[in-house]
């Protein structure tokens, strides 16, 4: 039986709708609209009076979750964009080329500036280049060196330098002066929100878990749409408070939780409801995912990285640029996942090999081997695409998932 919608769920809808409406309102009033990649520190734009920030990846994920992904992908494919390209840009390009009409929201306001980065993937830069050419607007590229170990000081300084150049560009484009106090306040809001976010994720430690990874997938949205705002802090406080309260009251998403699983990759946006329901029927709960555990951390660590009032916020923003799994290597990924397995008492790991996200996926075969050897827990690899439902075979995936659960069961029986 489906749980009734939580207060945080209702609040999430209001917050997201509000942020989209606000973006449109400010755009109509003449604000500069920035389309940015998800890890770009939106706090920088809060340092300006009249700049709005939107995230095409988040909009694409929303389109996928509302089942319009394949239709939009097909539009892009009809323009010549290969089906092998990531489904996020195919959705986005399909949406833009279709006159911005097909969207579960009102879409995004037309941008005046594009800001990509290559820490999650270089294809974001290629994707934003498509808009840069078609819309004839500037494209600022943030270049983030990959980490095979802790981020190096020289790389951090290089990123900070680019943020300063970005600020100069926005000043030049808008004629506004960057307000360091506004930026500082926005950075603090984000840091506070991260603390609340981690408190929410901590509820997965409970047995049964107080959350599912699907909850965290849905609830990550404000991190992209409302970064640097008091509204985001308030939302994550409501979310963490309510989730903790539910745990206290014994209200769990999978009350009969027999299997605690970890999901490795981007959310399967088109399968959110169906997958959580089917797994719940089997007593299985995917309680966490590196994709959302990483928010608020650093490369190789899912633990909260504390904001320091003594440091330049640009330093903090640069220091966290490699946090999102894709921008770091196998050793670091193994460290982070090991922490999660131990802290959360994981029984099995689902490696979702994602054709749309090679940067996340190309490493999983070795990571799977490492994790299986290190923890003696069963793991499974399934094929998926995070936003193009046409590339997901439900029955094939479930056959493997059921085998994973049987494996866990047989190991328990043998113990």
């Amino acid at each position, binding site marked *: 039986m489906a749980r009734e919608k939580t207060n945080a769920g209702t609040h999430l809808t209001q917050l997201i709708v509000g942020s989209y409406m606000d973006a449109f309102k400010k755009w109509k009033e003449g604000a500069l609209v920035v389309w940015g990649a998800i890890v770009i520190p939106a706090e920088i734009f809060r340092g300006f009076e009249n700049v709005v920030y939107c995230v095409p990846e988040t909009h694409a994920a929303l389109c996928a979750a509302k089942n319009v992904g394949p239709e939009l992908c097909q539009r892009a494919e009809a323009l010549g964009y*290969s089906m092998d390209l990531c489904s996020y840009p195919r959705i986005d390009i399909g949406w833009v080329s279709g006159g911005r009409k097909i969207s579960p929201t009102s879409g995004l306001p037309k941008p005046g500036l594009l800001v990509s980065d290559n820490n999650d993937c270089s294809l974001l830069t290629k994707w934003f280049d498509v808009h840069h050419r078609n819309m004839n607007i500037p494209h600022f590229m943030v*270049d983030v060196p990959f980490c095979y170990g802790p981020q190096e000081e020289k790389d951090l300084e290089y990123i900070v330098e*680019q943020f300063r150049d970005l600020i100069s560009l926005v000043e030049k484009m808008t004629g506004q002066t960057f307000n360091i106090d506004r930026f500082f306040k926005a950075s603090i809001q984000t840091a506070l929100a991260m603390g609340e976010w981690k408190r929410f994720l901590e509820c997965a430690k409970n047995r049964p878990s107080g959350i599912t990874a699907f909850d965290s997938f849905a609830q990550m949205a404000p991190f992209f749409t409302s970064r640097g705002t008091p509204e985001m802090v308030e939302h994550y406080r409501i979310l963490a408070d309510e989730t903790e309260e539910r745990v206290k009251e014994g209200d769990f998403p999978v009350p009969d939780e027999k299997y605690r699983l970890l999901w490795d990759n981007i959310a399967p946006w088109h399968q959110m409801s169906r997958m959580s329901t089917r797994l719940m029927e089997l007593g299985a709960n995917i309680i966490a995912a590196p994709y959302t555990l990483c928010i608020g951390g650093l490369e190789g660590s899912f633990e909260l990285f504390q904001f320091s009032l003594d440091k330049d916020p640009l330093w903090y923003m640069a220091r966290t640029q490699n946090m999102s799994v894709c921008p770091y290597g196998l050793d670091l990924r193994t460290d982070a996942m090991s922490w999660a397995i131990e802290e959360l008492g994981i029984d099995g790991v689902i490696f979702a090999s994602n054709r749309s996200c090679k940067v996340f996926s*190309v490493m999983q075969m*070795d990571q799977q081997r490492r994790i299986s050897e290190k923890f003696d827990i069963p793991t499974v690899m399934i094929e998926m695409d995070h936003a193009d439902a046409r590339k997901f075979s439900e029955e094939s995936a479930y056959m493997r998932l059921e085998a994973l659960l049987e494996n866990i069961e047989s190991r328990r029986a043998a113990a």
Partner: protein
Amino acid sequence: MKPLDGIRRSKEAGKPVIGCFPLYPPLELLHSMGLAPVVLWGLRGPVHDADRHIQNFACSVARRLAQVVIDDAEGLFDGIFFYNGCDTLRNLPEILQEGREELGRDALPVFRVHVPMVPAEQTDASAYLRNEMQNLIVCLESAYGLSFSEESFAESVALYGSARALCLQLEEAVARGGMAFSDFCDTLMSANFLPVEEQIELLESKIAVAGEERALEPSSRVVVSGILPPPPAICKLIDDAGLTVVGNDVAAFHRSYARAPQEWSDVNDYYVRFYRDHFPCTTLLYSSDARFKALTSMVEASGADGFVFIGEKFCEYEYFELPHLEEKLKEKGVSVLPLEISIEDESTAETYRTRIEAFAEVLAGAEATVSGTS
């Protein structure tokens, strides 16, 4: 010559062999320090060990590179160099070490540089890159007990400059019909695995033979583009269809040898200029605006009326730019033939015959119509 034969020769000469990930490693620097750099693309053969580590939706370049480095039963490699050439490649170094360990091979020293992927007019990253190059030199000196000198570096730059100039001459020979495209591709891919001194000998010998202009059947002029040249059988199909390749935008060819700094103050400055002013490539993220201008100029200057895109299956860098490129070329009256090559397709070249022949007929037909001879 098989790719590994060239590497064996470097190894036998006693130089430490550095397997360089594509696309544009600092070959001159490595060579100047007494190392034998080889760019690991254009490799052939089945992929098996690597498939236990990398999904089959990675491109053939990554899978074959991984196969050769992981397998390496002969111990051909003494080190690996890579830069942030593409997302898949940046994920590989640790995977290769895992694979080697699994097969009982020694771990390889790994050297890395981050090449700034920002437009110069946006962010001045020259100091960052200078520092990267300096760190690389220090690491190489420490690993192999070698020392760097600007004099040796200048000599290596001159050698690679000669090789690049010869490649351009050979390219011209193909354009005027003095050499088959298939022979050209075979020569350049063979040269890739040789020490630069031997590359020069090979290229000179080919130029000597190809010097004479040959009378050709009326044919259509095309530019070929892609990461790698087409597989040999497809090159031959292009030749057999009567298409003359008057220019190429192949990453392993023209994009690699078209430009290099003519003036520089030191090794670090050389590579700042090398990457900043490089012939545009889909993987050099800051060069995409320049790329369309460079390609349309190439097409116009060569008088090409056709453009053959050799799509490396799963190379998103290339595929993101194809629709816009196609549109721009068509606006100029240039027909485009997009072909997609995957590992599995390489042995089934006949499936491309009809498309290539039909494309040649379309171009010939258009030519005849324009000249009023239809």
